[in-house]
């Protein structure tokens, strides 16, 4: 169990690093093939639509910081409750700060890597 939690923390750190580097390809590798992301409340995205949205979002070179509030791990499935802050720019290029508490479901792959199955950044709001 502690090994799994350690892996999860490593996952989050690597995700944050890729996010802040604007590295879409690395970031995308942290999502399962069927992953659902809900960056706009009520509008779940999957597949190519999810990738397109995220690629565009990262192009503004946002910076994220996260604090994991709770984590539950059972077998190859985890639920994380995460406070996050993103500093980015709006459509006019003005600084914009986004905050929320995410509800994330992760799956442990056979390769030992945790990946988002559901990424719901405003899930707890």
């Amino acid at each position, binding site marked *: 169990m502690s090994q799994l939690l350690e892996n999860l923390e490593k996952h989050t750190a690597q995700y944050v690093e890729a996010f802040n580097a604007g590295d879409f390809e690395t970031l995308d590798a942290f999502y*399962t*093939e*069927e*992953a*659902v992301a*809900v960056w706009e409340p*009520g509008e*779940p995205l*999957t597949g190519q639509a999810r990738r397109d949205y995220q690629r565009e979002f990262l192009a503004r070179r946002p910076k994220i910081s996260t604090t994991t509030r*709770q984590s*539950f791990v*059972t*077998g190859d*499935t985890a*639920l994380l*409750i995460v406070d996050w802050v993103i500093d980015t720019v709006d459509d006019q290029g003005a600084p914009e700060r986004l905050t929320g508490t995410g*509800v994330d*479901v992760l*799956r442990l792959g056979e390769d030992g890597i945790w990946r988002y*199955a*559901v990424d*719901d950044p405003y*899930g*707890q709001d």
Partner: protein
Amino acid sequence: MAFDFSTDFDPENPDLTDNTEIQNEIFLQAFNSGDGALFNRLYLEDSISNFSGEPLTGAARLAFFKEFLAPKPSLKAEVTHAYVAGDVALIGVKYSIDTTGENGEPVHLEGVCTDVLRRGEDGRWLMSIDRPVAATGLVAE
């Protein structure tokens, strides 16, 4: 068992399915049956339930369910969102529970709950993790 299940499901071998409405219906019926052992079969052995305020699995979870459901609390729940990603799903529900306290007094609980469901190798969907957040009172103290 003198309980009338209006949606057919096998109480010995339940399947919550990937259909949100059926999930909610079966969950409500299992909960409202007052039968903790039956309700526990909606969970895998190592699934985590936070109903008690603590993450419980296995025998501790079963013991809690039996105790909590014994006074036959009445649960109402409404699904607010559901995301299915392959063999895992995240469900959000708004719930209210009317039950009886230790001294026979009525207790009303309500809040929101996040549920993670998994499809097992036998194809059945079951509870993997639940995480209620109570808006009034606690589910259990």
